[in-house]
């Protein structure tokens, strides 16, 4: 059974939730929309289809302290950072980003479980929002994601000036408990049908992913076209850092003067120092680094995860790559059908 709320009363809802929980939502700041903590002064932008950064930061923040060391003489004191204990709601997650959480779970919740991530997952409620107007860069359809009916603890639809809620999980039921029931669910059905029609028109909506799997690992890896594809790549981390599924991280120490703060932060396999050791690196040129990123998404990850791709088709890399090199290029260039 769905719940509903007039759109203009959403801030009221947020206000109420934020008495007990942190609300994270797409918020505009300095001209850009990103997920951020909602406050009364925030500019909420539920109409923005894609935040610049994906929603993954809510569970896997770009920087997080993990442990602090205090050194004295030959002695070391170890003070692990606290894991999250407060509840939060992340609101307005799109179907693609919602899928990315499942993919991150595969990494961080597999044995041994990452305590920081696990705590965030445990305390976070994911409220997703259907995409009324998908864009040409969207290709979530390739990965079995329904932008018209996204997953999450709660699914929302904005139809006209009403926002509809459907709880999908226990957390979701708790979230929607106080909302009034929807009188009529047909606007949602109408909207879904509409969206489904638009999704059919996506230019990259139906990619051929044949041959991207563990069984063809060596073939894909040894494809001679990688160097051609990677030639324009700047080796920046834009694609990685806007990507909802990229999960590589680095662990670093910062000397604060009084102690050593160890933190982890997002890293990118596109960076030249990613695998650099004292005597060199096993990925010396951008070609190898570029290949690594896409092999991971399209071959290695599925090989280890029952064929599940580490891409959700959000299309952020299509929009943000400074030189317009992205996963579509790779899929189209290396796809098996081309060889056939």
């Amino acid at each position, binding site marked *: 059974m769905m719940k509903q709320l007039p759109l203009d009363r959403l801030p009221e809802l947020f206000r109420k939730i934020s008495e007990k929980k942190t609300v994270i939502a797409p918020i505009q700041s300095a001209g850009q929309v990103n997920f951020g903590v909602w406050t009364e002064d925030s500019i909420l932008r539920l109409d923005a289809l894609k935040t610049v950064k994906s929603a993954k930061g809510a569970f896997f923040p770009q920087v997080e302290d993990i442990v602090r060391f205090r050194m004295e003489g030959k002695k070391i004191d170890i003070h692990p950072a606290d894991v999250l204990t407060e509840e939060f709601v992340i609101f307005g997650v799109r179907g693609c980003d919602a899928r990315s959480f499942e993919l991150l779970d595969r990494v961080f919740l597999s044995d041994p479980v990452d305590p920081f991530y696990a705590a965030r997952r445990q305390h976070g409620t994911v409220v997703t929002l259907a995409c009324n*107007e998908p864009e040409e860069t969207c290709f979530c359809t390739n990965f079995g994601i329904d932008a018209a009916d996204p997953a999450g603890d709660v699914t929302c639809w904005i139809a006209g000036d009403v926002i509809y809620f459907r709880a999908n999980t226990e957390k979701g039921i708790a979230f929607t408990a106080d909302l009034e029931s929807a009188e009529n669910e047909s606007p949602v059905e109408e909207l879904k049908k509409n969206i489904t029609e638009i999704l059919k028109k996506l230019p990259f909506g139906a990619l051929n992913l044949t041959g991207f799997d563990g069984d063809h690992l060596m073939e894909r890896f040894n494809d001679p076209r990688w160097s051609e594809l990677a030639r324009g790549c700047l080796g*920046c981390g834009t694609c990685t850092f806007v990507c909802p599924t990229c999960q590589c991280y*680095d662990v670093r120490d910062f000397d604060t003067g009084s102690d050593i703060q160890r933190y982890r*932060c*997002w890293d*990118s396999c596109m960076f*030249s120092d990613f695998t650099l050791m004292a005597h060199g690196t096993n990925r010396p040129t951008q070609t190898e680094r570029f290949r690594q990123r896409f092999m991971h998404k399209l071959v290695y990850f599925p090989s280890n995860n029952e064929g599940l791709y580490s891409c959700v088709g959000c299309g952020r890399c299509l929009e943000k790559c400074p030189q317009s090199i992205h996963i579509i290029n790779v899929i189209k260039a290396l796809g098996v059908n081309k060889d056939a």
Partner: protein
Amino acid sequence: MQEMIINRLRELLADGEYAGVIGWAQGETPFDRTPNLFNAEGLDQLRYDSFCGSNLSKYLVQQASKTEKKIIALLKPCDCYSFNQLCTEHRIDRNKVYVIGVGCKGKIDVEKIRKAGIKGITGITEDGDLLKIETMYGEKEISRKDVLLEKCLACKGKEHKCADEVLGESEETCSGDKYAAVRRLEAMTAEERFEFWRGELSKCIRCNACRNVCPACSCIKCVFDNPNSGVQNKAAADDFEESLFHIIRAYHVAGRCTDCGECSRVCPQGIPLHLLNRRIIQDVNELYGDYQAGESIGQRHPLTDFTLEDEEPSVIDTRGGGK
């Protein structure tokens, strides 16, 4: 013009004297233009049109040293400054590059079209100053001059400062006072300026796109990647580090930045990074005389130079800002 360029390149590439051409290739969307190296066979993939905004000069740092043969580069008038600067810094061997200056009448920023609320773009055609945009939600129109890249609004003119030959016509697209935005910031109070920059820089995700695209940032190993530099850092852990990265970056390119505007073009978060560099350029010009980095090869830039009569640092107290 694209036809003309391809024909000329076919001629040049015919006898094998050149290792290839650095140009723009057709990407997957109608407006994706990806830098690539072309040989004679691949020329049909080369595109030159209003979407070729990226500056190709930095690719020559690697390519020109790799090949024995000369390489051909397609450079727009503004790209030539970066090219000259890289030659000055011995990062490109001028003798190994044949520069074809390609005409430019301003390049289109697709991001600006999106920002104007046009969604689901599937095609763009130009009709004089009018852009006809096909989208998944019907046809839209927008004025070309409203969606030019930010860098085109600070156009340095139509002259190619380093071309061995020039193909096509250029037009200056400068929108007037290029320091207007800098002055607007200067007119604010220190507190307002601080808030402005904190707002902008807090968006930074440290993707390094600005650095990696910047023709002045051609270091073999950047200080931010070097564990021994004392500032090595991969993610901004707090406000300070967000600023630190951009202050140091702006300072490192001071005197060498040609104001090519690539940093702002590639920033996924739309941070107006060029406003940092432009302020330095403005300072340098006002304090030490007019200087345009990359105007010619072999220049000595203002921070590696001095006069006995230079202003004292306290001059800043009396200039703009300082409130």
